[in-house]
């Protein structure tokens, strides 16, 4: 219950932000942090709670992004209606990848590589097909109206991404407090033991990847509205997959607040290096890579785990 209150207070506080802050730069930073949190939450559901490390979450993100963009560009569908459609498409791709991988017992590194290969297949397809605009990508028509999921200022986008991350928070909280979550973590910790206790591991993992992919696709649909543009590299390139996994690993795998903690820490680090070293290409990703190695080596339970350990030591 405490966690639930913390989530609500936090989201309430962020919701009040536009009333006090009008700086576009600050609001953009908050939006991008929440956006990274959302991607992290999606990845965390499958990897942190379910133990299945994907290297290709871009496959779901990009599908969400393209589903929404293509519907708007080719059929003039309202962008709000595109959002649920994008989520369904992403979840369907998740179901496909999951059904194949889990049916044939792929685990660990092999699962990671197969998801990456799927993302690459989608990237090449998006690059070669007319429907997705090929290598040029798709530009979402400018409407600038809240009714079309496009806003004049940043505040509107802030509320949308806040609502999506809130959904991510609630899902994560639910995993901590439900039978399904107990089954998922049991499968993560030991699949055979879980099966012996009556847990249908295949089904549980499949559901996890569907939920995770749906959330990721929502992130993709948001991206399209916020930047009004998508191309194969942005949608299906490895950068998105890396962004999704980095946050939870830094913040704490399989925890409710890990993705937020990680996203915030990485954004802070990113801003810091930008101030110190300027906008030189590659610097921030280089540092992210080093952070990833350092976290895995020295803090496998993330910053959140570090806090917990310190709190446990304190009298």
């Amino acid at each position, binding site marked *: 219950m405490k966690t639930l209150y913390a989530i609500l207070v936090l989201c309430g506080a962020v919701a009040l932000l536009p009333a006090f802050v009008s700086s576009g730069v600050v609001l953009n930073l908050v939006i991008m942090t929440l956006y990274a949190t959302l991607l992290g939450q999606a990845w965390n559901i499958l990897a942190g709670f379910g133990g299945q490390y994907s290297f290709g979450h871009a496959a779901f993100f990009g599908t969400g992004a393209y589903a929404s963009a293509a519907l708007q560009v080719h059929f003039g569908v309202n962008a709000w209606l595109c959002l649920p459609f994008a989520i369904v498409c992403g979840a369907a791709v998740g179901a496909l990848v999951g059904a194949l991988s889990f049916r044939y017992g792929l685990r660990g590194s092999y699962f990671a590589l197969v998801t990456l290969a799927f993302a690459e297949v989608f990237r090449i397809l998006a690059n070669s097909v007319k429907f997705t605009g090929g290598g040029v990508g798709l530009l979402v028509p400018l409407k600038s109206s809240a009714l079309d999921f496009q806003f004049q200022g940043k505040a509107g986008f802030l509320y949308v991404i806040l609502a999506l991350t809130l959904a991510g928070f609630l899902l994560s909280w639910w995993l901590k407090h439900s039978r399904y979550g107990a089954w998922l*973590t049991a499968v993560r*910790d030991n699949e055979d*033991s879980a099966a012996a*206790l009556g847990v249908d591991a295949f089904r549980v993992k499949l559901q996890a990847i569907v939920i995770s992919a749906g959330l990721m696709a929502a992130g993709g649909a948001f991206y399209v509205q916020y930047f009004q543009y998508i191309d194969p590299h942005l949608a299906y390139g490895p950068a998105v997959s890396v962004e999704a996994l980095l946050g939870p690993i830094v913040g704490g795998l399989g925890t409710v607040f890990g993705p937020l903690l990680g996203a915030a820490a990485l954004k802070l680090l990113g801003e810091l290096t930008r101030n110190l070293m300027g906008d030189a290409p590659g610097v921030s990703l280089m540092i992210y890579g080093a952070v990833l190695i350092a976290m895995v080596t020295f803090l496998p339970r993330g910053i959140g785990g570090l806090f917990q350990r310190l709190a446990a030591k304190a009298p």
Partner: protein
Amino acid sequence: MLQARHVSISFGGLKAVDDASLAVPAGSITSLIGPNGAGKSTLFGILSGFLEPDAGSVSFLGQEVTGLAPHRICRLGMTRTFQLAQPFAGQTVRENIAVGSHLHRAQRKAALAHAESIALRVGLSGRLDRPARDLTIAGRKRLELARALATEPKLLLLDEVLAGLNPQEVSEMSPVIRSIRDGGVTVLMIEHVMQAVMNLSEHTWVLNNGQLIAEGKPADVTRDPRVIEAYLGRGAAERLRTSGNEAHA
């Protein structure tokens, strides 16, 4: 209650289980014994759906379960434990047991409460909120038993839950197993600790080189020359008999 008919399985060239048939009557504590590598755990794997036999069939409560997935067999009321106890390391003892409790309880609260009552039965009450990875071997064996018990099975398959325990711990666990049976759960146990087999089980099966070589009351079976030879090697029964006679004389 449980019946295996002519089941066989081989790994590569090795016949790990060879035309084995066995039956477990409802309400009993039945044991399965045999030397190391006899194929006991492999047979358990077949009974519980983790391994598919090359030949033969298994039925449980009159229903054919050969080749059924493990979780389905568990849902029918047969739950196994593993010889190498593997707790869900990241979770507390209570959470571990609750995974089993959830089989018949959708609510988290109800499952956690049920887990607590199960912990009481197997003597884990004091360690409910400890991380499972911190448990000793004896603690892990108890947890393995508790998780399985939490699924409220009709038949429990216990793979060496007493192995690795000291005599003190064995004598603590024996009444627990008996009370489980008295609570209406049929038990089939693999065991090396002979004293426990004698104490607990009414009927025992002996497996050697994948084949069932004897069955009967534990006291009778352990006098069976074939069984003694299986354990101690060819000619051992003869030697034992003569030396035993001398000792008794």
